[in-house]
C-alpha cells in the first residue's frame, strides 16, 4: 500500500521535473555563471583564459566615471518616461471609461503602439526624426521654425528618445489602469455623487486610493523596463551624440560586445540587477501597505 502511495507521490514531481530543469538551465545557471564571470578579468580578444581578480571589477566599476554618467542618464530617462507614462496613461484611462462604440474603437487604437516590435518602432521614429526628410521638421518648417537635429545634438536627443518610450508604453499603463478603474464598485461613486463631491474630489479621495494597487503594479513594471532600456536607444542613437543617451544597458553592451571585456560587462549587468531588485522590493512593500 505504501509503495503505491510513494509511486503516486513521485509522479507529480516527475511531471514538474522538466520545467524545473529548464528553469535551472535557462535562469539559475546563467545567473551563477555570470556572477562567476564578474570575479574574473576575461577578454574575448585574448587567447589566455580568464584571470581571477576577486572584487577587482566591482572596485573598477565604482571608480568608473563613465558608469556614473550612464547611471545618471538612466535615472533621468527612467524618471521622465515613467512619470509621463503614468500621468498620460491615467488621464486616458479616466477619459475613456464609457462603453460607447467610439470609445471602444479609441481603446483599440490606443493599444497599437505597444503591439509593434521595439526595433521596428524605433526605426519608424528614426525616419520621423530625420532633420532633412522627417515629418517633425517638415511641419515645423511650415510654422517657420527651424527644427532641431533631433538625434544629432545632445539637448534634443535624450528627450527624443524618451518620447519614443512614452509613445510605445503609455498604452500599457492605460490598459492596466483602465482595467483597475473598470473593476471599481460603482456604488461608491454614486454615493459620492449624492453627497455632492466634485470630479476632482471624487478622483482624489475615491478613485486614486482605490486604483493605487494597479498604479503601483504599472509603476513597478514600467520602472523595471525603462531602467533596462536598450533597443530603442541602440537603434536611434547608439548612445550618442556626445554620449548624451548612453544608458547603463548601452554602456554594458559596448563593454561586452564592442570591447569584448566580458568580466566587466558581467559586473555592470549585476549592478543593474541589484539596483532593479532593491527598487522593486520598495515598490512591493508600498503595494503591500496600500
Amino acid at each position, binding site marked *: 500500500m505504501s509503495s503505491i502511495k510513494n509511486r503516486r507521490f513521485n509522479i507529480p514531481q516527475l511531471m514538474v521535473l522538466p520545467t524545473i530543469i529548464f528553469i535551472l538551465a535557462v535562469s539559475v545557471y546563467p545567473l551563477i555563471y555570470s556572477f562567476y564571470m564578474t570575479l574574473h578579468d576575461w577578454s*574575448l*580578444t*585574448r*587567447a589566455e583564459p580568464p584571470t581571477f581578480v576577486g572584487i577587482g571589477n566591482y572596485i573598477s566599476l565604482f571608480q568608473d566615471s563613465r558608469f556614473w554618467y550612464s547611471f545618471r542618464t538612466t535615472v533621468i530617462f527612467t524618471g521622465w518616461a515613467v512619470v509621463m507614462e503614468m500621468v498620460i496613461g491615467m488621464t486616458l484611462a479616466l477619459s475613456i471609461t464609457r462603453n460607447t462604440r467610439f470609445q471602444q474603437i479609441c481603446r483599440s487604437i490606443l493599444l497599437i503602439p505597444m503591439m509593434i516590435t521595439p526595433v521596428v518602432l524605433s526605426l519608424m521614429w528614426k525616419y520621423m526624426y*530625420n*532633420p*532633412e526628410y522627417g515629418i517633425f521638421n517638415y511641419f515645423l518648417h511650415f510654422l517657420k521654425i527651424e527644427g532641431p*537635429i533631433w*538625434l*544629432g*545634438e*545632445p539637448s534634443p536627443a535624450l528627450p527624443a528618445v524618451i518620447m519614443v518610450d512614452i509613445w510605445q508604453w503609455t498604452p500599457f499603463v492605460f490598459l492596466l489602469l483602465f482595467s483597475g478603474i473598470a473593476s471599481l464598485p460603482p456604488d461608491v461613486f454614486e454615493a459620492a455623487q449624492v453627497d455632492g463631491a466634485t470630479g476632482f474630489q471624487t478622483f482624489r479621495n475615491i478613485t486614486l486610493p482605490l486604483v493605487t494597487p494597479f498604479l503601483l503594479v504599472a509603476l513597478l513594471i514600467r520602472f523595471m523596463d525603462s531602467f533596462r532600456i536598450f533597443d530603442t536607444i541602440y537603434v536611434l*542613437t*547608439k*548612445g*550618442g*551624440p*556626445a*554620449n*548624451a543617451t548612453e544608458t547603463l544597458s548601452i554602456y554594458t553592451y*559596448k563593454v561586452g*560586445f*564592442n*570591447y*569584448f571585456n566580458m568580466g566587466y560587462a558581467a559586473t555592470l549587468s549585476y549592478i543593474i540587477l541589484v539596483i532593479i531588485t532593491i527598487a522593486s522590493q520598495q515598490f512591493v512593500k508600498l503595494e503591500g501597505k496600500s
Partner: protein
Amino acid sequence: MKRSTKKCIIFGLVLSLIFIFALVAQGADKPVLRTLVFQGWARTPSLQKQVLEYEKLTGVKVEIEEVPFSQFHEKMILDFASKAGTYDFIGTLTDWFSELVRGGYIIPIDDYIKNDPPEDWPNTYPQALLNLQTKDGKLYGFPTHDGPIMLYYRKDLFEDPKEKEAFKEKYGYELQSPKTWAQFLDMAIFFNRPDQNLNGTVIAAKQGGQQLAYDFYLMLWSFGGDIFDENWKPIFNSQAGIDGLQYYADLRNKWGVTPKASTTYDETESGPIYLEGRAALMWHWSHIASWAEMEDRSKIIGKNGYTVFPVADPNIPHTTLDIHWFFAISSASKNQDETYELVKWLCNKENDKEAAFMGTVACRLSTFHDPDVLEKFPFYSGIEAALAGEAKTTPQIAEYAQVDDLIGIACSKVIAGEKTAKEALDEAAKQVEDLMAKAGYYK
C-alpha cells in the same frame, strides 16, 4: 496493431534512415563553406557572383551571411570565441587584425602560399597592404577591398570658367583642387549654396559610426600630429590634435559648410550626398571614385575629380588613411584547405579585375596596371602612389576598438559644443593611457 503492420513500419523507417544517410554521405564529399559579410559591403556583389561560378567549377557551395555593419564585428568575434566554426572565412577589416591574431582566431597562410602561391607571387599586392595583415613575419590573409581616403571635388564646378573667375576675384588665387586646409575652407565657403541645394562639403560626424574617429586621425596627421608615440603613450592631445579637431568641428558649427545633420551621418550616408551632387568637396574612401562613374549609384558621372588629402601647412607631407578588407581563414574552420583554395581563387587576377568593375576597390597590382581598369577608373594610379607614399593606418593593437570609441566620444563632445577640443582630447588621452597601462603596454 498487427505484427505484419508493425514489421512494415519498422522496415519503412529503416529504409528512410538509409536513404537519409546516403544523401548526407553524398553531400559530405564536398564541404559547404560559409562566410560573413556586412550589408552594403562594396565587395559583396562581386563575391555573390563569383561564389556561384566557383560552385559550378568545383562543386563547392559557398554560403554568404549578411548582417548590418553595426553587428558585424560582434558577430564575428563571438563566433570565433565560441569556436563554433560557423564561418570558414571572413572578409574582415585590418582595424581588427591584431585582436583576431591575439585571440588565435585566424590562421597564417604562409605554408599554403609556399605550396600553392597566388598568381604573380610575391609581386601580387603592394607591400603596404600586406604589411597590415602580417604579424611576426606571418601573413594572415589576402587583401580584397581597399580604400585609402582621397579628397573628391566636383571637377565640373572647379573647371567652370565663370566659377574660376568669381573665385579668383573673391580670394585672389586660382580655383583648383585644394592642397591646404585654408584653401579647402575658402572653396567650401565659396561653393556653399543652400538655395541651390549645394553644400561646400559633407562630413560623417556621427558618434558610434565608423567614420568619426577616422576623420580625427586624418585631421591629426594633416596638422602634423600622431596618435601614439613609440612607447604607446597617447599624444593625440597635442596642439596638432586640438587644432585639427577644432577645424573639423568648425566646418559645421562655425562655417556651416557641411549640413547640420552631419552629426547623424556615417560614411554610408555622407557618400551618397556627394554622389547625388549635393556637395562640392568631400573626403571619403576610394570606392567613391569607382561609384561616381556607375550609373546606378551616381548623378555626377564624369564630374568627379580626386586629389591628395589636404594639410594644414605645405611643409607637412600629404598623407592618407589606409585600412582595408582582407579574407582571413578561421582557425576553427574544419575546411581550411578548401577555404584557402576558394580565397586564392576569389583573389586571382580575373576576379580582382571583375570586382573592380563591380564597385570594389581592387587590391592586386595586376588590376592597378590593367589598361581596361585605368581607362574606366583612372584613380587606381593614385591609389598605388598613395600606398607607396605616406599612407598611415590605425593603431595595430588589440585594444583598438576601445581606443576608437573613446576618441569618437571626445570628438562628438567637441562638435556638440560640450567641451573644448583641449578638454575633450586631454580626457580621452587619460582614458586611453589608463587602458593601455591596464593592458600591459607600459613597464
